[in-house]
């Protein structure tokens, strides 16, 4: 172990004395510092903007004047997806989804206004965030720093000299890997500091931050071990470099994109219009409130009349229109929920496939773990959509309930022809204040930790594979007499 430390010390000294290595480390330090700071300010600004917008929309809803409740159903409200707790570290899909959802009766809208659609085409080249730095840039820097560590010594003959002085294959490999690990830790410090800072500000997230750091640690460990092993196995430093750059390009750049493209084609998601048409067709089949002879609504009416022992809806003890609206909303919302669940199932399956493909590329696995931890993944977005839909349904049904109980049936019937009756259908603005505000909190740290288990397991598999390669390199060196 002492020899390994000595070798690591000399390798670090080499890095310190090599201008190229210093420039590389300094560049990455700078990039990850810039990424940490800009990402933190951007996400803080986004969080503030969304919180303010949510407060403003809630206040506007409560400030509406006396109205017919159905007008409030159409006035609706907005739900804004809050910024994930660790979004400053890994914004994940935040930019690629809409963040604003308009909630109104009868309709289920899509989330609008995402940062990616507001950016130039350059956004597709990647976003400079701490996560991007760690996932994409850091491994390549490690390749540059480490490709020659052992190959160089072999080319210059000093590898045999080291062996002649008694250093074994194991201490050489461990020493070189150790030095590379120290360089990695140093260059990544700002990114990890960003993570630590987030954990300090939100103590509840400390466990998740630790798991996230663990997954990145594992990911970079895989790179450190593989780079050192390849440097030991390659015939020349040049060969090691070309092999490692190819491996990096395939694992970090090629596979994530190709996998996403393939998954998108292999497991297609119905378009928004497909879903709208399907829902409309289902509604026409199960109950069309526009059709006076619709069997479902005819039966619904007959059942109500029978239960209250009356023959006309005007004689019901409540405003039939409100109850009818509730029944209509119940039918459509059930369909919205069913179709959203179907779409979510497809998307979750797509994402699941990507996680499984992490077996080909640890970059996919670490990205999954990181986004899940940061609550900036698909799962959180779907949870937001589901929460917003549940809120929409509750709000609309409450307003429909107010129409049934607080608006007189006769006034409601006459309001489009009689301005006086119309005025009487306006109920007190105080009712709007009884509707609770929309509130969404990301999946709990416990749930997220659970969801991180699978990608962490894939990363553990990769660490095991890397250790295997490392051990293989050791055997090869030993067989060469070291």
């Amino acid at each position, binding site marked *: 172990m002492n020899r390994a430390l000595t070798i690591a010390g000399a390798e670090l000294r080499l890095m310190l004395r090599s201008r*190229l290595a210093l420039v590389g480390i300094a560049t990455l330090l700078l990039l990850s510092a*810039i990424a940490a700071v*800009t990402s933190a300010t951007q996400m803080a600004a986004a969080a503030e*903007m*969304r919180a303010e917008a949510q407060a*403003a*929309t809630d206040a*506007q809803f409560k400030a509406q004047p006396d109205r017919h409740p159905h*007008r409030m159903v159409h006035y609706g409200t907005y739900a804004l997806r809050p910024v994930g707790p660790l979004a400053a570290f890994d914004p994940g*899909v935040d930019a690629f989804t*809409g963040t604003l959802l308009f909630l109104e009766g009868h309709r289920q*809208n899509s989330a*609008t*206004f*995402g940062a*990616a*659609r*507001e*950016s*130039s*085409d*350059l*956004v*597709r080249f*990647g*976003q*400079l965030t701490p996560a991007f730095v760690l996932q994409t840039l850091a491994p390549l820097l490690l390749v540059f720093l480490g*490709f020659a560590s052992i190959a160089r010594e072999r080319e210059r003959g000093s590898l045999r000299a080291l062996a002649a002085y008694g250093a074994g294959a194991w201490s050489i490999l461990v020493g070189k890997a150790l030095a590379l690990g120290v360089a990695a830790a140093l260059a990544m410090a700002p990114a990890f500091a960003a993570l630590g800072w987030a954990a300090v500000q939100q103590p509840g997230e400390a466990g998740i931050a630790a798991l996230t750091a663990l997954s990145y640690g594992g990911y970079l460990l895989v790179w450190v071990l593989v780079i050192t092993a390849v440097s030991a196995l390659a015939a*020349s*430093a*040049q060969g090691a*470099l*070309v092999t490692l*750059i*190819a491996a990096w390009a395939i694992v970090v750049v*090629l596979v994530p*994109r*190709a*996998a996403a*493209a*393939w998954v*998108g*084609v292999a497991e*297609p*998601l119905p*378009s*928004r219009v497909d879903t*709208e*048409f399907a829902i*409309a*067709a289902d509604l026409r089949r199960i109950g069309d409130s*526009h*059709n006076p002879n619709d069997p479902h609504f005819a039966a619904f009416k007959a059942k109500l009349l029978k239960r209250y022992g009356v023959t006309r809806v005007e004689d019901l003890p409540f405003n039939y229109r409100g109850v009818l609206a509730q029944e209509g909303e119940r039918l459509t919302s059930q369909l919205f929920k069913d179709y959203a669940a179907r779409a979510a199932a497809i*998307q979750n399956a*797509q*994402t699941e496939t990507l996680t499984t493909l992490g077996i080909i590329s640890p970059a996919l696995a670490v990205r999954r773990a990181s986004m899940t931890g940061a609550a900036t993944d*698909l799962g959180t977005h779907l949870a937001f959509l589901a929460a917003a839909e549940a809120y929409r349904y509750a709000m609309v049904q409450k307003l429909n309930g107010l129409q049934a109980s607080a608006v007189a049936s006769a006034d409601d019937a006459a309001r*489009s*022809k009689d*301005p006086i009756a119309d005025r009487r259908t306006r109920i007190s603005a105080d009712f709007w204040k009884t509707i609770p505000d929309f509130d969404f909190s990301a999946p709990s740290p416990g749930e997220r930790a659970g969801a991180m288990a699978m990608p962490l397991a894939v990363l553990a598999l990769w660490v095991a594979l890397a250790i295997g390669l490392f051990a293989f390199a050791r055997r090869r060196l030993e067989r060469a007499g070291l």
Partner: protein
Amino acid sequence: MSNLAREFGFMLRSRSALMALALLAICASAAVALGLASVARDRAAIDRMIAGQATEERALAAFVKDAGSGAYYGFQPTWDAPSDLAFAALGSRDIAPAMLRVRALALEAQIYENEAANPELALPGRFDLAFVVIYLAPLVLIALLHDLWSGEREAGRYHALAAMPGANRRLWSARVLVRLGGVLAALLLPFAVGALIAGTAPLRALGFAGLIGLVALLWTAIILIVARRGSRSAVHAASLAAIWFALTLVAPAGANLAINAAVPVPDGAALARENREYVHAGWDRPRDQTMRDFLKLYPQLAPGAAIPPTFHWKWYFAFQHLGDRHVAQQSQAYRDGIARRAELARAAGWLLPPAGLAQAMTALARTDIAAQLDYQMRIRAYHQRLREFFYDYLFSEKPFGPDDLADVPRFDPAIDS
């Protein structure tokens, strides 16, 4: 010619060179195939929408009573069909919708809708031929050419080779040409097949092929300048990979950050809220004022503008449109902000050739942000035609029934611009 043939044979004997070229050709072919599949899926979705519209209109015909209900319930499809080159550069078609059904209500509440898509698939970026050309081809060129001279020097052959008469022409030029040719073939053959299948217009296909050639030439030049320096092969490879990394990964991401910081885009949520506020306040605003404001925009409708004290669709659609007008400036500023960002990104492309060439590819394929903004403008133009069609019925009190649904103007990608 014999020099080229000899160097070609030489390259065929290098297993690593063949592997790199094979990988590139496989990636290019896969990218073309997935691109064609993606475009076919887009087309099929648009076809389904247009076919499904007939069903929707039959259903609407069953209960439409007047022009107002026809306009209120009558969603009309608009679409942005992929171009014949989209398969090669899919651009941002995955994050911006290619289909939108609109109706004559306030457009600002409709136009920002998003397509249903898994954001995790959009996150890593597209896998298309443009990606293979911009990201992977330079790496393959670097692998093939970085040790052109240093490799021979390290093998101790350099001086012997360089001393031969005409070494420049016979050896180095031939070697560069053969390897560059291999890379171009790996990219252009799959592209040619894709273009034939997609029926790309010859000039456009040629333009795209020219961009591919430009990328390859640019990188060949960069590589040769670096490889000419007398360092070791490993140093050349590392320097070139670092240049690639800076130009292709870091600088565009940094430029995006800087551009977004320099050009603020108005808050979309505020825009949407403002539009809703104005539209819904229309219910409570004095009706005369609404009609007066509306007639300022449509004086020709004044003769039929009288409204009863109760609900009338004329009034309803008037305040819907006034809601759009109310935020027109904000909406324009929002579009301008995005357009300005795109413009700066194109300017940055002159400094960052990979980003510039990638943008040129998506521009040629009409899959860039500019194309998205253009589609939105076509939706706006169509929305105006749609609204005015119904205004005509509403303000002249012409009866409107199921039969008139057939006369509702249709979106036409060619004329709504």
